[in-house]
């Protein structure tokens, strides 16, 4: 019985990694295909989409231009609006699952974090003073406002000049601004010390989707009557949310990775779950 439960937990942890790998590979192959197209080759069955076309944040920055002039910001395509709509629906249902399950930059940071965990053991994700972390976690909201403002003012995708997602899948092309490569480098290096530094402290799309934690339908809920107060959920949370401190997680940092649930670290069945 015990063995079955353990196996079920392992499978449950693996499924998110499998989904992350699928989406990372899809975006990487699409980026490679875009490059190969310039030399007359293409990978069968893989899209030749522009990378900007495959990020929902393009939909956010182009909304002002769409409403005021009826056109999209340069380099943005209507697919970004479709993805924004889908990411929005997913988030209203389950919170920012786009960040924890689908975003390739988030996945890469998480994978590097596993390496950081092996190197630094218990010190991993505890390098920053909690007070500093509490301040830094609000930084992504002004970033969101700033990016929307400068895009509306200029009509151009200026965020591409600092965007680590674009840099990650295009660094070889010569089209990426040096600032974006520096930010990507800092993000990847930082991931060895801190869990998902870009997502937690700077990502404007993460900031927007995180707001759905206030209204999402399926929430992370803890059942106090069966909770043994072992606090494994608290230690497992990459965003350092005190799951054991309340019966419903409403923290804006939650990205629905489900590590805290009874399917993963919580040792008591049906105690920490994502449910309506």
């Amino acid at each position, binding site marked *: 019985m015990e063995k079955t439960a353990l196996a079920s937990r392992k499978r*449950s942890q693996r499924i998110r990694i499998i989904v992350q790998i699928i989406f990372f590979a899809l975006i990487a192959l699409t980026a490679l295909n875009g490059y190969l197209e310039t030399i007359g080759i293409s990978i069968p069955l893989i899209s030749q989409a522009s990378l900007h076309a495959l990020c929902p944040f393009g939909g956010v920055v182009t909304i002002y231009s769409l409403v005021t002039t009826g056109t999209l910001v340069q380099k943005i395509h209507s*697919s970004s609006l479709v993805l924004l709509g889908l990411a929005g629906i997913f988030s209203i249902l*389950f919170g920012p699952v786009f960040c924890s*399950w689908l975003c390739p930059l988030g996945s890469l940071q998480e994978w590097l974090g596993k390496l950081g965990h092996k190197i630094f053991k218990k010190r991993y994700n505890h390098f920053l003073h909690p007070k500093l972390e509490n301040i830094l976690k609000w930084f992504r909201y002004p970033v969101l406002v700033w990016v929307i403002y400068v895009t509306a003012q200029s009509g151009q995708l200026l965020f591409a000049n600092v965007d680590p997602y674009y840099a990650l899948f295009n660094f070889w092309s010569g089209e990426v601004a040096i600032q974006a490569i520096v930010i990507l480098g800092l993000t990847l290096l930082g991931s060895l010390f801190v869990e998902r530094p870009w997502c937690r402290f700077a990502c404007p799309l993460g900031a927007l989707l995180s707001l759905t934690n206030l209204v999402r339908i399926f929430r992370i809920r803890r059942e106090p009557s069966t909770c043994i107060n072992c606090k494994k959920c608290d230690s497992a949370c990459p965003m350092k949310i005190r799951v054991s401190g309340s019966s419903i997680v409403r923290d804006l940092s939650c990205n629905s990775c489900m590590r805290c649930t009874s399917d993963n670290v919580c040792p008591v069945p049906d105690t920490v779950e994502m449910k309506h």
Partner: protein
Amino acid sequence: MKIRAYGLAIFLIVFLFGGIAVSQQLGWWKTTSTKVPVTIQSGDFAGQADPMDIRGSYKFTDIRDNFDIPLADLGSAFQLSESQAATFQAKELESIDFGDPQKEIGTGSIRMFVAFYIGMSPDQITLSDLPQSAITVLKEKGNLSESARAYLDNLNL
């Protein structure tokens, strides 16, 4: 109602790809630009493709097709052979050394070249820098407006 990791994974994959498929059917899923600039809405050039909407991803052949400018003229203007010009993208201009570090030659230069070539005047466009070779081609082959010609003469002075 409880959501488990497996259920969430299946939901995300089915609804993401399903949503994309539906948007494709509705014609909303566009991941590349059409390489056709917007048309000018008013004034003398109403109905004409707008040179100011040329994007960095446009090949010179797209510009030839949209503005009826021979590839040879585009190539000469930006110091490319006709065969090079056939596959050249506007954004690649930034990587070419035109011998004058003061000038910023890029997609804006192509927009200005095309606008002047088809007869638009400086006050109708966003001005940029042009290499000397483009100025020469414009003066010899372009349908230059008087104000554009005067502007180019001033540049040469």
